[in-house]
């Protein structure tokens, strides 16, 4: 039962990552692709949690935090650069 649940959830995760990859490849506009990449990042977080349960180790739990933070920062940077043309705005004080 344990193996069935774990392998079933890994298969579902792989299928959903492929669906997001289809959206990255096909997506008519740029925000579509960014959205799909963000979803892939969040899905990877779940995949790392499943692997750490499957292998019975605590060693991968830092990876969850790091992948989450990197995916968030990447999404914000993409969205800002799409909106304004720059990532970091500098206000000039004359």
């Amino acid at each position, binding site marked *: *039962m*344990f193996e069935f*649940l*774990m392998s*079933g*959830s*890994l298969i*579902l*995760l792989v*299928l*959903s*990552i492929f*669906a*997001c990859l*289809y*959206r990255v490849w096909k997506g008519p*506009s*740029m*925000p*579509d692709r*960014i*959205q*799909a990449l*963000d*979803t892939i990042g*969040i*899905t990877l*977080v*779940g995949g790392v*949690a*499943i692997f*750490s*349960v499957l292998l*019975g180790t*605590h060693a991968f*739990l*830092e990876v*969850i*935090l790091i992948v*989450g*933070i990197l995916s*968030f920062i990447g*999404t*914000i940077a993409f*969205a*800002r650069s*799409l*909106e304004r043309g720059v990532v970091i705005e500098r206000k000039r004080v004359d």
Partner: protein
Amino acid sequence: MSARELIELIGPLFIFIGTIFTFLSAIGLIRLPDVYTRSHAASKSTTLGVLCTLFGAFLFFVITEEFVSIRLLLGIFFVFLTAPIAAHMICRAAYRSNVVLAEQSVQDDLKPFLKEEGMKD
């Protein structure tokens, strides 16, 4: 199957439910018509699915090894905090870079406000 084994199945059950939610959101990501409707699938149900998965892993470690993982709790908190912000930023960028709405959409409340704002500049 003893009671102990049944209790140990609670965590994997949560994980399975969470991945089902993630899979449904991926189907929504394929089938919905434009960016704004797709962001519902991409932010809400993915967040719920990953929260269920991380909570299941947390319960698994608590039940089998009596190990309370602060890092998993931080991960839950962080995903819960950042995924809606990311979806909001993407939708805002999409609207401001003139991505068109789907043909079936009925109402666009933001348009007059943005037009007013553009006149001021």
